[in-house]
């Protein structure tokens, strides 16, 4: 597998950083170009290093068991750590990925260390918590105060949902400006590399860090909000945690995994009084962006988030839920999308016991009913599921093989190759 030298292309007010990928044996539906696109005004942040393509590209190499040749410059520090990184990934997912050799054409770091501090900004609990912890009021060290939030299209919002992305982007830009940071909207097709092959819920780490590395010309630090706390990380394997993420640092860009010391309910508690969080929180799996209440309030994630907010008595302050809890009885909604295998349920009961003990019987009833529902769904035979799809059940919006690709941008890149001198 060859990862070619990254190139920059300016088209229609956007800067596109891209690299061609050549496979030893061309697999089906693998992207030929990996790309990141952002508005031209942010092009100064784009890094000419290959690090940004190597990190996610490595997953494909490890999955296909193809040695990797990197034609562009790679950070010596990153190269040093990738051996151990691969070892750990293989140890955690031995059936999915295996270590491969990487051949570097040039080991060089960026010749300067930028001062910006970036973080991913999805509007979720984890990213808002990380943001609030790195605002000047809470973070005394100036070099660790976030300067940029990166909002990614092509990760939890698909390229085909561009309208939704723009809708949120506008809200987030305003919120970011209020807290003194700049929002960088970044589009990418990186997830196409692993889509349908490796589960994104496990392998999202290199995608986020690859995106952070694409902005290495502007960032000296990039903070990855933790999705899991230390206790959860002990039990299950992921590709983003306080051990793995720092391995993907370079001499000039330090990767910091933040927030694993806190449970999700503790994070909710910390952001509950923050006006920005009240205005922009977005946790929903079935989002609709026609109005300002973009959290459906029914999916597992919405309910899981509303429970601690209601327990804290802050529900009415969060404006982005379509049907916020209003009475204790609303806790029964939990049954509707309760997932007995989601580890977050466990932390909710002690939290509610502490803050709103009178609500516990309702939540217990919700969880009990939900468990019955959950088992029934798990036991639904495959052919019934298939049949139910015609009615919109068991359908995944990102099931399409090209769900994470934007053909228009790939086309622009291809055309640029066609017109470039041989």
């Amino acid at each position, binding site marked *: 597998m060859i990862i070619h030298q990254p190139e920059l292309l300016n088209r229609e007010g956007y800067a596109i950083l891209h690299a061609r990928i050549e496979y030893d044996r061309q697999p089906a539906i693998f992207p030929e170009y990996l790309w990141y696109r952002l508005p031209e005004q942010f092009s100064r942040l784009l890094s000419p290093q290959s690090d940004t393509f190597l990190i996610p590209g490595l997953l494909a190499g490890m999955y296909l068991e193809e040695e990797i040749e990197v034609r562009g410059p790679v950070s010596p520090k990153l190269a*040093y750590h990738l051996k151990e990184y691969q070892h*750990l990934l293989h140890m955690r997912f031995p059936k999915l990925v295996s270590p491969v050799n990487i051949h570097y054409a040039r080991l060089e770091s960026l010749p300067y260390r930028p001062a910006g501090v970036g973080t991913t900004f999805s509007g979720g609990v984890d990213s808002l918590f990380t943001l609030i912890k790195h605002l000047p009021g809470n973070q005394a060290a100036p070099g660790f105060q976030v300067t940029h939030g990166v909002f990614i299209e092509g990760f939890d919002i698909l390229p085909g949902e561009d309208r939704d992305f723009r809708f949120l982007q506008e809200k987030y830009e305003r919120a970011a400006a209020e807290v003194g940071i700049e929002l960088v909207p970044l589009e990418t097709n990186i997830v196409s590399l692993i889509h349908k092959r490796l589960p994104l819920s496990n392998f999202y780490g290199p995608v986020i860090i690859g995106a952070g590395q694409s902005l290495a010309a502007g960032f000296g630090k990039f903070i990855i909000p933790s999705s899991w706390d230390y206790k959860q990380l002990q039990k299950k394997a992921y590709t983003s945690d306080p*051990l793995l993420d720092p391995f993907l640092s370079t001499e000039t860009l330090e990767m910091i995994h933040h927030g694993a010391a806190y449970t999700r309910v503790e994070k909710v508690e910390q952001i509950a009084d923050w006006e920005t969080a009240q205005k922009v929180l977005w946790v929903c799996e079935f989002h609709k962006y026609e109005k300002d209440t973009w959290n459906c309030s029914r999916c597992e994630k919405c309910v899981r988030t509303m429970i601690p907010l209601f327990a804290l008595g802050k529900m009415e302050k969060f404006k982005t839920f379509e049907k916020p809890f209003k009475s204790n009885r609303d806790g029964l909604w939990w049954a509707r999308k309760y997932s007995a295998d989601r580890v977050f349920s466990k932390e909710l009961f002690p939290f509610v016991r502490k803050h709103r003990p009178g609500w516990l019987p309702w939540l217990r009833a919700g969880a009990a009913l939900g468990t019955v529902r959950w088992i029934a769904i798990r036991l639904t035979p495959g052919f019934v599921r298939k049949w139910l799809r015609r009615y919109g059940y068991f359908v995944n919006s990102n099931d399409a093989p090209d769900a994470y690709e934007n053909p228009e941008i790939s086309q622009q890149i291809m055309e640029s190759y066609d017109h470039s001198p041989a």
Partner: protein
Amino acid sequence: MIIHQPELLMRDGDAIVHARIEMKQSRENIPDHLWYRVPEQFSQHLSLQGDAFLIPGLLAGMHFQEDIEMRGTVSPRLAYNLEEYQELLHFLLPKPVTPVKINYSRLEPLPVNPAGMGTTFSGGVDSFYSLWKHLPGNQPIPGYQITHALFLLGFDILHENRPRYEKIQSRYRDMLREVDIELIPLETNLVRLIVPRMKFTHFYAPVLIGSAHLFGNLFSKFIVPNSNDHWQNKRWTSSSNPTSDPLLSSDTLTIIHHGASTRRVEKVDEMCDWDLFQNNLRVCTPEDPASDILNCSRCEKCVRTMIPIYALGKMEKFSTFEKPFKTDRDLLWWARKFDHTKDYVVEVFPFIRRINPRLIPWLRIASLAGYGRYWIVNLLPKPLQRWLQRYGYYVDKLNHKTAYEDPELAEFLRSREI
């Protein structure tokens, strides 16, 4: 707890960097001063940042739940990471340590741009392996080749065993010269903060990393050789692991925890033809500290190391074992000090099955007998254990008040203060 501004002192050809420690409440056997001592010729490498004292001092603060006031300058990056570091330590070891507040008087990085790469070197399998992997022949990236190694007195060799320390030091100095690495002998009393109140095997990392920060003018990177590998880290808890150690990096010094991807037997396998390893391996703390022996060949660690060497057919090439295995039957020695809790048993059997399956029956017998012995020894009633202490059994020499202190230097620093 107050950690005062570090000071440099030249005395009898040595450079001493020390900082006064003030506890809010008086605590038994806590040193008044933390100190490091090196030969004068290395003094230009020493840094007077507070980092080298804050890192080990934090353990005491966390143990006694005393907030810390730092009078010296501390690296902003270290200060940022210490919040997470404390949370992580508390998560791993909730009983002995709890997060505390640290108040900094000055947050500034060291105004230097060092180029050296250091490591601790004890002569054991792990430190040899980290060294081996960072020699130019094995490590093509120039910035990741080791230039200096620290050899500590007051860590696994006590101050009272100085003659033994000096002999080993001179041996290792000559050996490392052959691979263009300079050995720096370093003495310290940092361990006194930890022993006897916390388990040294859990909390040794801040001592090693604190020592690295002392050489802030020299090191840009410092390798901490792993003790537990990634498989053991799933079950075992220690303050030194690939997640926690890098959190103790500063703006100018990156701490790298190295070697956890490789199991101990694999390390022996990889290095067993290296003559420096064969002639200088030291895995043992002999019962008689005055002896010249590097490896007694009887203790658990010696036997655990000799098993893969013997299985690989290289035993006769290793010159530092007092009684090397000569026949398969000798593997029964394993029973004598067998300790399954060390978690190395699980790697020995698959390795031997692959390398030399003929030895498996002997190992099985040894481990069976060893299990029996282990339980007998550990289930002996406490009164009986106490009675046996008069014959030298069940005695922990490290719990002695001055085990990790040089009383003469401690007294000198105290009198100077007065």
